[in-house]
C-alpha cells in the first residue's frame, strides 16, 4: 500500500478551502444584479386560499415583483413529482396528488409556499412579504399518521388520505409459522419523525441569460443532473440543453438535498420573469418547515420463534407518514428500502410486511440517512433483543443461533445477500466492548446510584444504490447507474469527471487515491470534478452510500479503457505489438526487454499523434464508462452500546460505543471512520433527543434548534470503531459503502441498552431524561409515603 493509494489514510485535498473560509457554498455565490427571494408561507396546516392581495407589498421600496400560484399556473409551470411508482396490494397505482411549486387555491401544511417576493435586498423582501395579505378559510387538519385515515381528506385523489397499501412477502406461510410458534414476541414501535438539519440551509440562485435564453441554477443539490432532468422534463421549465445546474460546495445533505423542491423551481421561473438573477437561502426556521423530514413510522411487529430460539417468521404492519405531498423518492423509503431488510442478519423462513402510506398536513417526508433501513433495523433488532429477554436466552447467543452462515443467501423479501460473516463481527465487537466485564461494571455503577445497560444492534443494510433493472422493475422511474469520464491531459495529469457529488464525503481525495494507484501517477496530479451539468454529462448523484460501490466502479471501468488505449499508443511509440506491452507503476514496458515509456511521454504522444501509423488509432486519451451495478451491496456489522442511566433524573450517558462494521474494501480508513462517527451521532440523536412534533392543529412545535434538540459534543462519547472485511463480489473493487451504516445501526443499540438498564420495554424514542424517568416510575410505582 503506498502512502496515497487504496487503504491509506490520506489527508483530504478539499480541506484547505474549508479551513480557511474559502469554500464556495451556494449562498456565497453572487451574481451581478442579483435580487433576493422571500417566500410567503401558510401559517395554517390546512386551508383554502380565498384571495391574495399583493398591492401593498408591491408598493414597498426595493420590490421588483410579487408572484403567486396563479401566476405560476398562467405560465404553465408543471408540478413537482414523485419518481417512484408504488402499487397497492389490489394493483392500483399510488395516489400522487398535485404539488405545484406555489399553492394553487389550497395550502396543505404550515410552511406551504403561497407567494414569493422578489426584492433588491433581503430586508426589503421580508418587509414586503409581511404586507402580502392572504385571506384563508381554515380547514380541519390531521397531523398524526395513526389518525390520518379517519381525518379530514386532504387531496381529492386520495380518499382516507391513503396513498398506497403495499405489501411484501408471503402472508400464508407467515401466518402458518406464527400459528406453530412456541414463542411470539410483539412490539408496538414508533420510529420518530426527524428533521435532517444539515448545517448549511437549502439555497437556490437562478440566473436567466437574456442573450442566450439559457437558465443557470446554483443549488444545494446532492444530484444536479437529476434536478436538471426533473425541472426540465417534468416541470417544463426549459429544455434540458438550455438549463445548467451547478451544485457547488454543499454543507451536508443526508438525503434532504436529493429532492427537487418548490424553491428552486420558483427561483428559476422568477428569474426569467424579472430578467435578473434571483437568490433564495432558507432561514433555519424555514428549513424546519420545508426540508423533507425523515422516518415517521407507526409499526406493530411480531417475531415467531421455536423452543430453541430459532426464528420462524417475522411480520410487521406499518403506517408511514409521507406528509402533505409526495416528495421525489418518498414512496420508495417505507417500501423497497424498508420491507426488504426485515430479514436482518438472520435466516428467517417467512416474512410478511404491510405498509400503508398516508397523507397528513405536515411537511413532506422522504429519505434521510439510512432511508428505510434504520426503520427496518430498529424493528428487527428490538424484536430479537426483547425475544431474547423473554425467552431467557442471552442476546448475543440468540443472534448466533439465527445468523445466516452461507452465501449467497436469498431472503424472503427480495434481497439476496452476496457475502458476509456476521459471526466474525459479533465476536470482534464482544471483545472490543469487553462484554465479559460488563457485569462488574454494572454492579459498580449500581453502588453509585446508576443503572448500566448493554444493547446490541447487529444490522445489515442494502446500499450501493442500485441495479437499474432491479429498481426499474420495482417502480423507480430512473436507472441508478453511475458515470465516469477520465481525461488524461497531454502533460499526464488526469481529471476525472464523476456523476457523483460530494457534500462532506471526501471524494476529491478518495477518488484521486484510486486513480493515482491504478495509473501509478502522483496523487497531486489527479483532479476530481463533480457537480456541474456543463462539465459532467450525466450522473445520478450521491445518496444511498453509492459513490464508492457505483461511482468508483465506473471510474475503474473507465480506467480499464484508458489503460487499453494507452497501451496502443505505447505500442506505436515503442514499435512493438500491442499484446507485448505491460503497464505497471506508471510505466509501459515491452515484455522481456528494457524498452519502456513513461506515463507522461505516452500521454503527450496520444495528443501529438505523430507516431500513429495509418488511421486505426485516434488521437487523444479520454474514456467514459457508465456502470450499472449487478446487485445492491450489503454492509453489515455489530454495534454495542453501553449506557449509564441516572435513577433520579432519567438522564442517559453513553459510556462506551463499539462499532464493528464490514464495508468490504476500504479506500481511506480515516474517511470511513468519520462516516461511521457521523452516522452513529445521528442515530444517537434519534434515540435520545430528536423528534419533530406537530400539535393537533398541525403547528410544528419543534420549529427551531431551541425546541428540536440537536446532538452536541457533550452528548456523545468517543467511539471505538473497527472493521471486518468480506469483499462485495458485485463490483470490481469489492466496496460495500459506509455512509449510512452508523445511522442504521445506532438507534436500536441505544434503546436496547436503555431498556436493559431500566428493566422495562415501555419506552419510545426519543428516550429523553423525562421519558426514561417516567418509564422507571411506571415500572416501579412508589409506595405512598
Amino acid at each position, binding site marked *: 500500500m503506498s502512502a496515497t493509494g487504496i487503504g491509506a489514510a490520506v489527508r483530504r485535498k*478539499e480541506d484547505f478551502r474549508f479551513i480557511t473560509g474559502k469554500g464556495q457554498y451556494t449562498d456565497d455565490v453572487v451574481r451581478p444584479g442579483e435580487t433576493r427571494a422571500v417566500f410567503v408561507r401558510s401559517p395554517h396546516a390546512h386551508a383554502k386560499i380565498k384571495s391574495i392581495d399583493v398591492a401593498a407589498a408591491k408598493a414597498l421600496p426595493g420590490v421588483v415583483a410579487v408572484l403567486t400560484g396563479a401566476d405560476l399556473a398562467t405560465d404553465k409551470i408543471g408540478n413537482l413529482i414523485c419518481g417512484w411508482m408504488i402499487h397497492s396490494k389490489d394493483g392500483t397505482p399510488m395516489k400522487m396528488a398535485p404539488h405545484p411549486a406555489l399553492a394553487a387555491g389550497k395550502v396543505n401544511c404550515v410552511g406551504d409556499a403561497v407567494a414569493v417576493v422578489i426584492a433588491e435586498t433581503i430586508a426589503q423582501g421580508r418587509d414586503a412579504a409581511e404586507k402580502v395579505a392572504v385571506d384563508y378559510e381554515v380547514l380541519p387538519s390531521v397531523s398524526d399518521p395513526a389518525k390520518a385515515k379517519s381525518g379530514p381528506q386532504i387531496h381529492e385523489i386520495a380518499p382516507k388520505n391513503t396513498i398506497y397499501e403495499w405489501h411484501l412477502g408471503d402472508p400464508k406461510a407467515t401466518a402458518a409459522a406464527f400459528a406453530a410458534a412456541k414463542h411470539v414476541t410483539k412490539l408496538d414501535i414508533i420510529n420518530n419523525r426527524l428533521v435532517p438539519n444539515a448545517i448549511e440551509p437549502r439555497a437556490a440562485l437562478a440566473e436567466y441569460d437574456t442573450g442566450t435564453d439559457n437558465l443557470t441554477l446554483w443549488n444545494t443539490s446532492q444530484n444536479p443532473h437529476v434536478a436538471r432532468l426533473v425541472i426540465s422534463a417534468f416541470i417544463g421549465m426549459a429544455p434540458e440543453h438550455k438549463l445548467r445546474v451547478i451544485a457547488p460546495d454543499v454543507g451536508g445533505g443526508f438525503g434532504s438535498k436529493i429532492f427537487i423542491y418548490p424553491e428552486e423551481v420558483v427561483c428559476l421561473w422568477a428569474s426569467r420573469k424579472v430578467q435578473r438573477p434571483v437568490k433564495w*437561502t432558507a432561514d433555519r426556521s424555514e428549513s424546519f418547515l420545508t426540508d423533507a423530514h425523515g422516518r415517521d413510522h407507526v409499526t406493530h411487529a411480531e417475531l415467531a420463534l421455536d423452543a430453541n430460539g430459532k426464528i420462524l417468521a417475522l411480520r410487521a404492519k406499518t403506517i408511514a407518514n409521507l406528509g402533505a405531498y409526495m416528495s421525489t423518492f418518498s414512496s420508495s423509503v417505507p417500501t423497497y428500502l424498508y420491507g426488504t431488510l426485515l430479514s436482518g442478519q438472520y435466516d428467517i423462513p417467512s416474512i410478511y410486511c404491510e405498509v400503508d402510506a398516508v397523507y397528513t398536513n405536515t411537511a413532506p417526508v422522504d429519505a434521510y440517512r439510512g432511508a428505510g433501513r434504520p426503520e427496518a433495523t430498529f424493528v428487527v433488532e428490538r424484536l430479537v433483543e426483547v425475544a431474547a429477554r423473554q425467552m431467557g436466552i442471552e442476546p448475543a447467543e440468540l443472534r448466533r443461533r439465527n445468523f445466516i452462515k452461507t452465501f449467497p443467501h436469498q431472503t424472503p423479501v427480495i434481497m439476496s445477500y452476496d457475502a458476509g460473516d456476521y459471526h466474525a463481527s459479533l465476536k470482534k465487537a464482544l471483545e472490543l466492548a469487553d462484554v465479559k466485564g460488563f457485569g462488574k461494571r454494572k454492579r459498580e455503577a449500581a453502588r453509585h446510584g446508576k443503572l448500566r445497560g448493554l444493547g446490541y444492534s447487529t444490522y445489515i443494510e442494502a446500499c450501493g444504490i442500485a441495479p437499474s433493472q432491479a429498481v426499474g422493475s420495482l417502480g423507480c422511474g430512473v436507472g441508478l447507474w453511475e458515470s465516469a469520464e477520465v481525461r488524461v491531459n497531454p502533460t499526464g495529469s488526469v481529471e476525472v469527471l464523476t456523476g457523483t457529488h460530494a457534500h462532506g464525503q471526501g471524494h476529491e481525495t478518495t477518488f484521486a487515491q484510486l486513480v493515482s494507484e491504478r495509473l501509478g501517477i502522483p496523487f497531486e496530479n489527479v483532479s476530481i470534478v463533480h457537480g456541474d451539468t456543463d462539465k459532467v454529462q450525466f450522473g445520478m448523484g450521491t445518496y444511498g452510500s453509492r459513490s464508492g460501490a457505483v461511482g468508483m466502479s465506473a471510474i475503474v471501468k473507465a480506467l480499464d479503457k484508458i489503460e487499453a488505449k494507452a497501451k496502443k499508443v505505447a505500442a506505436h511509440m515503442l514499435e512493438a505489438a500491442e499484446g507485448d506491452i505491460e503497464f505497471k507503476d506508471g510505466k509501459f514496458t515491452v515484455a522481456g526487454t528494457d524498452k519502456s515509456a513513461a506515463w507522461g511521454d505516452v500521454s503527450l504522444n496520444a495528443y501529438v499523434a505523430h507516431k500513429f501509423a495509418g488511421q486505426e488509432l485516434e488521437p487523444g486519451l479520454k474514456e467514459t464508462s457508465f456502470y450499472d451495478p449487478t446487485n445492491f451491496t450489503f454492509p453489515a456489522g455489530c454495534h454495542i452500546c453501553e449506557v449509564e442511566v441516572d435513577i433520579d433524573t432519567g438522564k442517559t450517558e453513553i459510556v462506551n460505543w463499539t462499532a464493528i462494521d464490514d464495508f468490504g474494501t476500504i479506500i481511506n480508513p480515516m474517511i470511513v471512520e468519520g462516516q461511521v462517527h457521523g452516522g452513529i451521532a445521528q442515530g444517537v440523536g434519534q434515540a435520545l433527543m430528536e423528534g419533530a412534533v406537530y400539535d393537533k392543529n398541525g403547528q410544528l412545535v419543534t420549529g427551531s434548534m431551541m425546541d428540536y434538540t440537536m446532538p*452536541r459534543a457533550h452528548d456523545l462519547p468517543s467511539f471505538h470503531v473497527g472493521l471486518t472485511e468480506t469483499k462485495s463480489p458485485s463490483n470490481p473493487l469489492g466496496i460495500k459503502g459506509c455512509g449510512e451504516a452508523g445511522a442504521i445501526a445506532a438507534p436500536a443499540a441505544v434503546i436496547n441498552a436503555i431498556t436493559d438498564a431500566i428493566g422495562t420495554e415501555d419506552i419510545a424514542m426519543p428516550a429523553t431524561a423525562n421519558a426514561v424517568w417516567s418509564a422507571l416510575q411506571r415500572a416501579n410505582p412508589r409506595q405512598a409515603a
Partner: protein
Amino acid sequence: MPAVSMTVNGKAVTGDVEARTLLVQFLREHLRLTGTHVGCDTSQCGACVVHVDGIAAKSCTLLALQCEGAKITTIEGLAEPGGALHPMQEAFREHHGLQCGYCTPGMIMAALDIVRRRGNDLDEHTIREQLDGNICRCTGYHNIVKAIAAGAKNMAKGGAPRRAAE
C-alpha cells in the same frame, strides 16, 4: 442609513448599514467575507462565530452597529499573510475534524477561544463541554475533539506554520 466603522482582519473598513443589519450580514454581504456562515436563526449552531476584540462572539446575534470601533477577526484572518496556516487550522485537517466544512470556520474560531480561556492542555471532557455552542451534523464530534486537543498543544509549541496548500 447609519455608517459603521471597524477593523476586520487588520484592515479598517466602513459601510452604510441599516440598524437591523447583523454583523454576519455585514461581513458576508458588505465585505464579501463569506467564510463566516449562517446555520440557524436562534443562536444555537455556532457556524457564525468570529472574534470581537479578542473574544469569541456569535456574529448572528450582534448588530453591525454594535461593533463600531471594534477589532474583528474572522476565519479569513487566521492564516499568515504568506499563506501559512494557523496550527489550529492545520490540526483540523490532520485529524479529519471536518467533512462538509460548513460548521468548520465557527468551530475553529470557537476552539481558539477555548484555548484562550482554558489553556493549551485540554482534556476531552473540557472540549466537549466547551463546544456546547457549536453544532456539527457530519462528524459526530469525535475527530473535532481530537483536532482541538492537538491544535491547542501545537499552539503552545509555537508550532511552525505549515505550508498553505499541500
